[in-house]
């Protein structure tokens, strides 16, 4: 099987962005909020969180479901899919793609999912256990499962190519893009990819609590402080992003310059607990750079995974330091504005990174005030930093040991 030469003009291009996130209902709104450093974390409103030790989240506020989701699908799908449908439609529009004009079997959909239609599923289990099986609705079978968003996006836009769903917890957004790149080396010309999540229901939050990784700090401005001496875990959020990824030649042929090229990707997995072996992030990062044909010196900014769990922050800082040297590359984590979006988080980071490449500015990290000195990170704080950006590295990790790294470059001029 021939492997495309990476880091070259053959690298696929991100030609459209769609964002449905706590920071905004479009990519433009999101980007404006990121540059303004406008936090979107607040007390949970989707249910009464009073009885839970964590009461903060990044919610997608003011999402007008009726305006953004075809009416027939509102009751057939979970909120997670609503947010995904909205983002996918925006991304296609942004890319100026009219699916009906492209060969149907050459358009694919590959999304990341983390936990599926959790809220929908909780409702239906409540129906079952409060009543009897006849109370369970006909749409549980298609709303809750992890492939719901990919399927609905494929149907809505008439995309009949290979569809996929990767569940690698919070790393999945990068893996979905990696898988999309594989499809673009085959018979697909365009992939709708990315991910969303919306597990802010009582059962979803309760499940997240069991990891012990959520911050119990009640001040929204102090709850999610990755790399900070006061780091206390993270805040959950909902939403995410969808991207249009195209073969370079096809994008060029239709005059779509795009935001960024996908130059490199790699995935790796941590050793089992108790192993003496090192975590996989460093070698995954190095593998993605090698895949991209980029040296560490060629990387202009790192969008960190930035877990906020101190041990995980320390491990990520160690990996970045080992590859780039102490303080040698700007590091940022705009996700402190939204909380961690699970299946949507890495995809949103890629969308943000693509916008950073377009505007040649590094968005700052809002929240941390006293980075752990020993981490040796040049964390971009306070305000956006103008910079000549050619190459961006995005890192993501997922619960259980998933690691992924993606290298983006400026579009070919």
């Amino acid at each position, binding site marked *: 099987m021939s*492997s495309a030469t990476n880091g070259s003009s053959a690298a696929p291009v991100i030609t459209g962005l769609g964002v449905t996130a706590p920071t905004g209902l479009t990519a433009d709104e999101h980007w404006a909020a990121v540059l303004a450093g406008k936090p979107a974390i607040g007390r949970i409103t989707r*249910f*009464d969180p009073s*009885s839970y*030790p964590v009461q903060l989240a990044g919610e997608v506020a003011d999402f007008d479901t009726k305006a953004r989701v075809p009416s027939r699908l509102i009751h057939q799908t979970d909120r997670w899919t609503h947010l995904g449908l909205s983002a996918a439609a925006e991304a296609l529009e942004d890319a100026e793609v009219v699916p009906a004009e492209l060969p*149907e079997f050459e358009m694919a959909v590959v999304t990341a999912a*983390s*936990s599926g239609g959790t809220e929908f599923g*909780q409702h*239906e*289990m409540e129906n*079952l*256990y*409060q009543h*009897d*099986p006849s109370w*369970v609705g*006909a749409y*549980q*079978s*298609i709303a*809750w*499962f*992890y*492939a719901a968003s990919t*399927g*609905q996006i*494929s*149907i809505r836009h*008439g995309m*009949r190519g*290979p*569809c996929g*769903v*990767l*569940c690698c*917890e919070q790393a999945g957004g990068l*893996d979905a893009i990696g*898988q999309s790149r594989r499809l673009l080396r085959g*018979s697909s010309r365009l992939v709708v990819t990315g991910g969303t999540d919306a597990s802010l229901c*009582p*059962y*979803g939050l*309760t*499940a*997240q609590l*069991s990891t012990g990784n959520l911050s119990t700090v009640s001040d929204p401005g102090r709850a999610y402080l990755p790399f900070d001496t006061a780091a206390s875990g993270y805040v959950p959020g909902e939403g995410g992003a969808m991207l249009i990824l195209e073969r370079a030649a096809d994008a060029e042929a239709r005059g779509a310059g795009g935001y960024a090229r996908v130059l490199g990707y790699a*995935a*790796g*997995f941590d*050793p*089992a*607990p108790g192993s003496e*072996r090192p975590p*996989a992030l460093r*070698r995954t990062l190095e593998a993605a750079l090698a895949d991209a044909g980029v040296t560490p010196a060629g990387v202009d900014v790192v969008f960190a995974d930035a877990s906020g769990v101190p041990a995980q922050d320390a491990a990520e800082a160690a990996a970045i330091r080992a590859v780039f040297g102490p303080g040698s590359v700007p590091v940022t984590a705009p996700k402190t504005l939204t909380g961690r979006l699970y299946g949507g988080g890495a995809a949103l980071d890629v969308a943000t990174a693509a916008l950073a490449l377009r505007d040649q500015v590094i968005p700052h990290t809002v929240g941390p005030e006293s980075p752990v000195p020993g981490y040796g990170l040049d964390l971009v704080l306070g305000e956006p930093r103008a910079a000549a950006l050619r190459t961006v590295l995005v890192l993501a990790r997922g*619960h*259980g*040991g*998933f690691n992924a790294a993606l290298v983006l470059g400026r579009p070919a001029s």
Partner: protein
Amino acid sequence: MVTGIGVLAPGSLGREGFWDQLSAGRTATRRITLFDPAPFRSQVAAEVDFDPAAAGLTPQQIRRMDRAAQFAVVCAREALADSGAELAALPPERIAVSIGSAVGCTMGLEEEYVTLSDGGKNWLVDSSYGVPHLYGYMVPSTLAVEVAHAVGAEGPVSLVSTGCTSGLDSIGHGVQLIEEGSADIVLAGATDAPLSPITAACFDAIKATTPNNADPEHASRPFDRDRDGFVLAEGSAVLILEEKSAAEARGARIYGEFVGFAGRSNAFHMTGLKAEGREMAEAIRAALDQAKLDPTAVGYINAHGSGTKQNDRHETAAFKRSLGDHAYHVPVSSIKSMVGHSLGAIGSIEVAACALALDRQVVPPTANLKNPDAECDLDYVPVTARDHAMDVVLSVGSGFGGFQSAMVLARPGAVPYERS
């Protein structure tokens, strides 16, 4: 190259028992025992008589892992032992895992929900009753994590969840990891353990599962005019995939070689299928193109054969559309007639059956096929297994979301290795 197979399917425990069952045409469908089926429209399932302790899992693994994870880990171990591969001799980062599952850890999720909500009473579930591994049930990725931990894999690890094509797609993904050089060995397969009240209820609601509660042993009747829905099932299969030269260098037994894989989507309906089978036919054609094979090379088709009227007609049309006249000359069978439909897992179980069929040169039958549907007019190998010389087999899957997948497996050396 497939060098090892591990299977947990209803009616048997392990690969050889599975093959014995298939070749005997024995059905494993029965009245549900894992929960009280009385309130449900469909009370039939194909269950695995599984004892996790006897299968080698530790008390902590049993407590922590959902049944679907237990299945996958046991299958991974069986497959590894079968392959003779020495993972300890490989760099861990060259070992990858690709596991498929349609519904993840639903049993664990539902059981814990019942406790946390106190029997469904409280929308604001009581988080103080949450077990420490609850989050592991919410995310299906746990299934891949458990397999990776069990075998010490540190390469790319994925959970592929494309509904009922998950088990084909996860193997397709694993093959790709080998071909692109991302791994030297991949544990690829799928697992599902969906036999719980919420899953039964959601398929009841759309009348997809059989209401034939009076005769559960004969309730899974693909291609028969008396079929009335699929039989829900559980199970798992994991295959060991290795690069050809590495497998040959260590003198591994080779069951078969993956030579083509493709997926297409109907972009029509989440659960509905159009009768003409166009997208499945396209997936089959694309998979054969990749293998550089003519349709006439196909020696056996392992059908999706779920036992719903729309499926049976849809794929019969797809076989004719993609293979032309050859569709009438190739044996087609559905092992779901015996082991039921285990959602995402069944795709991998069926690929395992294909590998064994190639290895043994025997086509498993379609059990319970006594009165063929007049619109299903192919050779579905009714009731009795058949000795059959074959070099190339095709396995297809069709699932919710409109996903259609096709995989082509060949006897080692039967097909030139170079392909597109």
